[in-house]
């Protein structure tokens, strides 16, 4: 894993500000070590991980979990786990779908929203079904574009 940059407190605050602007909530990324790899991918790891360890551990494949990808237009495409962290408090760009649509969403299909919370068109949205945060999508004119990675989809799913 090629770490491009370990973010300073100031840089973490900038990411938090982008999250706040997009999702209307404060997320305490300071509880994690935050770093970036190529293509502006953001990763989070336990604060107990001392990055000095990588002077010794040369064959490092992955650190922590993938949080999301920073886009040029100062928006963040969150991973499922990133959405789960942000989505608990999010008050903006949140969409609710019903259980039937949630099944389709997990299968990888685009779905129709049941309810929108301050959601902007053509923006990334956090997708919820009841209390569960099930991922992210892009809100289009009359549907939610599915952003569930192929590896996470369950094509045949029980309702």
């Amino acid at each position, binding site marked *: 894993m090629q770490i491009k940059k370990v973010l300073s407190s100031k840089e973490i605050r900038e990411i938090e500000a982008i999250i706040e602007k997009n999702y209307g909530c404060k997320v305490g990324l300071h509880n*994690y070590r935050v770093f970036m790899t190529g293509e502006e991918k953001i990763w989070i790891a336990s604060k107990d991980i001392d990055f000095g*360890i990588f002077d010794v551990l040369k064959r490092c*494949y992955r*650190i922590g979990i993938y949080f999301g990808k920073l886009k040029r237009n100062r928006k963040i495409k969150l991973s499922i786990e990133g959405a789960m962290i942000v989505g608990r408090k999010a008050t903006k760009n949140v969409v609710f779908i019903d259980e039937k649509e949630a099944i389709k969403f997990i299968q990888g299909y685009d779905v129709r929203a049941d309810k929108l919370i301050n959601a902007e068109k053509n923006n990334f949205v956090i997708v919820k079904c009841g209390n569960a945060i099930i991922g992210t999508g892009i809100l289009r004119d009359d549907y939610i574009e599915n952003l569930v990675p192929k590896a996470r989809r369950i094509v045949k799913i*029980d309702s």
Partner: protein
Amino acid sequence: MFRERIEQMIPDADAFFAAEQEWKSIRANTLKISREELLERLQAKYEIKEMPWYENGFFIIGEDIAKNMEYYLGYYHIQEAASMLPPLVMEIERKDFVIDLCAAPGSKTTQLAMMMENSGVIIANDISISRIRALTHNIQKAGAANCIITNYDARYFDKTGLKADKILLDAPCTASGKIIKNKKMIEKWKYWRVKKMARLQKALIKAACNCLTKDGILVYSTCSVEPEENEEVIDYALQRFDIEVEKIELKEIKTRHGIKEWNGKKFEWATKAIRIWPQDNNTEGFFICRLRKC
């Protein structure tokens, strides 16, 4: 030959060969959901019962337990009941520095991350890139942010110079304890495979002992029932390193102690290690031994 060996090990060999597993087992991922909430969600879909020996473990009956929303969300991990035991005997603390030497596909790694509440550090190592992909997927899905995945040959991991408070060596093995799930393994059983694995396991435990801090704990486990892969490996380490076996005590699960004598070799310490036999709890067979560096 396999049957004769089992008969030499235990008086109830017939029960060993007849053991069947009706229930599958899962572990709640408390990094994402409380066990109570998961139980409530799954009770609506499956027949489910609590695992007596581990609060976050459940037995479940139903087809396609990997095809529902809770599984997709990483609320639980499908994990063999007996394989939840090695992390439980590691005396894990939140801020520990842990090495999981043969980590893929990550069931025990993610269990450790959960027990550490995403604090501390876990080095999750595996030699195989294809297995590391599965490990990566499972760690991401579990939301385990305290893991560093490395790709070393664990036999030489000590060359990194890293020392850890706790090490899990769930060693590659012939998996003869999985007979409860796969009766056909008897036909494929070969003694040379046992010997080959034992050689590898000895090299692995050597590296593990070299990576332990003073007072550090090493838990060695396999899902094999062969003494060559278990008691003999521990004996090999005891003869070469300043380590001692600590007694393992587990509640609400039937355990037996290790084999005390095999092929003319005596293992006095074996009463402190445990064996889980498939016929005792309807789980896979497991050997678990806890060692402490003096």
